[in-house]
């Protein structure tokens, strides 16, 4: 058994948008564990249409880092743990080493991931319309001064060891690549056991972080392995983390790096648990499994409700800032890419507006909004217990259903969509892509509101706000940077491992 780290969790949101990617070799079979898209290069490009000096950013059709998995040759199977964990796949699936590759992902992550890919392609097309198509030859900016600037400006964006490897900066995939990728997908339900290659049993269980996100159990003849990406014990929207289904697996591939942003003290705790494990025999017991009752005592601690209470408090705080802005006559722009947060925000904002009888329209401007919103109301099996109760009580699963009916919420695919102007009224609250502030309606709206100090921009921490706001300078708009729950808290890792009782943990 051999594990290679292809990329660590990148970008903001504790790896939500770009989770880690690993290659696992087991019994001669190669598994790729997640394949996100790395959008870090995007920040170095000026958004279009160009305005002013573009802050010294590159004026060209953006390029994207090719997933590191490309260099590893072919893989036999891809295990995807989230919709964001499959966004890099269309880069690979057309390559020769991937002809017979099967992609395993939950039904819901696949249903959300596909429109995300399509929307990315569509938003990217705006650049192509502006500059003309990107040719395969290396563009001018790659050779000139501009590149060095790119490097220095977006230090975060350029990961070590990549400086000289510009061949990894490639044009975005096409709609055809997306189709090709989706053809390889074998969607599963939580708890469904699928057989791979005759000797492996694969099973996805909910990880609690987002709708359709999963952990994976790989059962091989000699060992049972848990692939544990970012997980949340109790969620306000997705089905809770099903850690009990991972109990007693031999090896845990712990890939939840969200807590690395926490304090150092917490990190030390994490390190204590990292044991070296390279090609070691799995038949040897190195950790004695105690079948004691003490393990069960830890359960209430890991799955208490603090996390979710904190999360709701955070979102309530954002709502109060939003409320303050609209009351003063300013509009609010929320380019946040987390489905769960968007769904919760909509419910809390509307509640707040309702109780204050302030009439401010809410817009969601996204090509995928209609499809995804309709979809979220049809997946009770994938939601947290309290939302499931709504099904049994005959109520809509999310608040947006009612808001749409009452005409408080409007969904439009584009800013130029028919009917948008008629419904448009400022101040308003707009949720739209893209969190990078380089793509989608967010660019145009930020241009519109950036000089109004009554307006508010809500962005997620860790996405490099300074660089991403550069082309919109000078700014008068208020900027609220916020963070959201993205995985297991460092303090809870210890008790979690105590419950799962693995023989090895690989970080």
């Amino acid at each position: 058994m051999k594990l290679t780290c292809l990329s660590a969790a990148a970008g903001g949101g504790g790896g939500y948008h770009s989770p880690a990617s690993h290659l696992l070799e087991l019994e001669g079979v190669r598994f790729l564990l997640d394949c996100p898209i790395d959008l870090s290069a995007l920040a170095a490009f000026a958004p279009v249409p160009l305005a002013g000096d573009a802050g010294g950013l590159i004026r060209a059709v953006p390029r994207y880092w090719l997933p590191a998995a490309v260099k590893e040759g072919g893989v036999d199977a891809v295990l995807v743990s989230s919709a964001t964990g499959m966004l890099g796949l269309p880069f690979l699936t057309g390559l020769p080493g991937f002809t017979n590759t099967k992609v395993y992902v939950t039904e819901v992550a696949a249903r959300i991931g596909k429109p995300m890919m399509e929307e990315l392609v569509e938003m990217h097309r705006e650049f192509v319309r502006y500059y003309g198509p990107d040719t395969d030859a290396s563009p001018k900016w790659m050779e000139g001064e501009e590149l060095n600037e790119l490097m220095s400006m977006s230090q975060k964006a350029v990961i070590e060891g990549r400086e000289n490897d510009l061949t990894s900066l490639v044009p975005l995939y096409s709609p055809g690549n997306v189709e090709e990728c989706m053809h390889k997908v074998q969607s599963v339900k939580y708890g469904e056991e699928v057989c791979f290659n005759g000797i492996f049993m694969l099973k996805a269980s909910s990880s609690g972080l987002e709708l359709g996100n999963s952990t994976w159990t790989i059962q091989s003849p000699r060992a049972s392995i848990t692939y544990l990406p970012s997980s949340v014990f109790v969620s306000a929207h997705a089905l809770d983390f099903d850690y009990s289904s991972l109990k007693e697996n031999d090896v845990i591939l712990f890939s939840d790096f969200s807590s690395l942003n926490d304090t150092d003290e917490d990190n030390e705790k994490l390190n204590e648990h990292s044991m070296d494990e390279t090609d070691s025999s799995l038949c040897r017991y190195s950790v004695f499994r105690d079948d004691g009752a003490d393990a069960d005592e830890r359960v209430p601690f890991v799955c208490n409700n603090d996390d979710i209470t904190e999360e709701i408090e955070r979102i309530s705080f954002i709502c109060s800032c939003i409320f303050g802005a609209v009351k003063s006559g300013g509009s609010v722009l929320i380019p946040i890419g987390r489905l769960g947060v968007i769904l919760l925000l909509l419910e809390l904002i509307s509640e707040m507006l309702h109780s204050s009888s302030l009439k401010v329209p809410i817009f969601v401007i996204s090509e995928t909004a209609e499809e995804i919103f309709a979809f979220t109301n049809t997946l009770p099996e994938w939601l947290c217990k309290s939302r499931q109760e709504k099904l049994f009580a005959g109520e809509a699963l999310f608040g947006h259903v009612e808001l749409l009916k009452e005409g408080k919420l409007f969904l439009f695919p584009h800013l130029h969509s028919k009917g948008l102007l008629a419904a448009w009224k400022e101040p308003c609250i707009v949720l739209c892509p893209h969190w990078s502030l380089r793509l989608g309606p967010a660019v145009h709206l930020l241009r519109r509101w950036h000089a109004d100090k009554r307006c508010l921009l809500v962005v997620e921490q860790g996405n490099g706000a300074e660089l991403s706001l550069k082309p919109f300078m000078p700014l008068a708009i208020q900027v609220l940077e916020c963070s959201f729950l993205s995985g297991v808290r460092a303090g809870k890792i210890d008790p979690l491992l105590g419950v799962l009782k693995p023989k090895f943990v690989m970080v």
Partner: protein
Amino acid sequence: MAIECLVLGAGQEVGKSCVVVTIGGKRVMFDCGMHMGYHDDRHYPDFARALAAWGAPDFTTAISCVVITHFHMDHIGALPYFTEVCGYHGPIYMTYPTKALAPFMLEDYRKVTMGQRGEEKQYSYEDILRCMKKVTPMDLKQTVQVDKDLVIRAYYAGHVIGAAMIYAKVGDAAMVYTGDYNMTPDRHLGAAQIDRLKLDVLITESTYAKSIRDSKPAREREFLKAVHKCVSGGGKVLIPTFALGRAQELCMLLDDYWERMGLKVPIYFSAGLTIQANVYYKMLIGWTSQKIKDSHTVHNPFDFKHVCHFERSFINNPGPCVLFATPGMITGGFSLEAFKKWAPSEKNLVTLPGYCVSGTIGHKLMCGKPTRVDYEDTHIDVRCQIHQLAFSPHTDSKGIMDLTEFLSPKNVILVHGEKPQMAFLKERIESELGMPCYYPGNNESVSIPTTQNLKMSATERFITGCAVEQGKRSLHKRNLIYGTGLSEEIGSDEAAGEGVLLMQKHKSPKILCEDELLEVLGMGRHLVQFEPMVSRIVAAVESELQRAKAADLDNDGK
């Protein structure tokens, strides 16, 4: 260890489905239905008698879990009685749609039967709610670990929204209980789908054990023509159905037809359930057919354009109309009220969708048209037209045969059917598929012997030997298995490995090479030479080996 199947209901009849299977020491109850044709003791399965036979103090200790396949009353109707009156407190499983929709079916039916004679064992609305709270919902294909040993899994069954076939497994013993299923897709549901599983017994419904239905579109046209003819002659159409399932399917059909033909005749639903049902159906769209799933963001097929608001007094209105009224089978309630009013006129039409259990008015209408129906103390003159829907959400006999052949279980048990037809199907299954088949009556049980697989380890030398052998024969085969614990694949193809199975007391069985056996036993090799005429060479070698063995060892050649 044997699998014991006790049929508490739906044995040689349709109604009150309930089968209790003892498998690997676990007792699982499949379905807990009521019989709508009876209003006395035969209404519910005879739980008390079963409990006495098991010799258990209460139902919770006697039964490991209850699994409900779908929300029809003949599959779930006795559940609130079983939990709230009989006091079963163990786990109950059903799919999400079943858990969501069952309370409506139960409450609708409870209201209808309230005050009927001999219903002293009735449960209350609160009982229904308390009962449903205890239910654990499950998703399709999800492997549910009921306890350490018992595993269950649901598969898509078609039939009604949320209907499931249930797979249960304890150790090596495995079985499937189908509930009601449909092997052909309909307007809003897909066809039943199941994996190829290794089964000791398949318990299947056999409602249409003998009949083969022809193409669905033809039957649908027949239905639409009959309805259209009636309304264009100024008549009223009564369709007695249950609130959920059939009603939605037929209404989709009518709504679509009305649109195409430009008809203006009102379509009514007796209860306010349509609107409520639509909210549910929208959320449960993931359980409908692929076609609907793909298109629902554009148009929700459960938003009916031609269904009008309805009030009870409308049944006295003149002019044509179509009315969906609950309950199905005309066992009482509003469908009976409308039937009393409309049956005397030859202009009107009663359409019976699906099966009607004996003892109901629907059943009487189905078995040849009567001119007079007596119900309790009233006499109803029946002069109206009767049309029986020739398509049903149950599989036909071809479907049952197909599924049975696909699953190839070691044994088949038929339930939920009529005795003569079941006998016919049993013959077919035994002669055409070569599987023992049973159709026990109520309170009878069938015992099925099971095979037991022994887990054994093999020595490295043996496996390498086999692998080399096999590798020679099938070079193209990838991924040979090495290691311990899994030896099923070895030699299962063309090549049989040769070795010795060693079973020692207090040790797990082990496969080894012939040479290794000698090493283990610490013996030298004895050579025995035979005359060519001796035919029992193998047996002789074995007896030689036996002699060479320590006293507490058993051995067996493979």
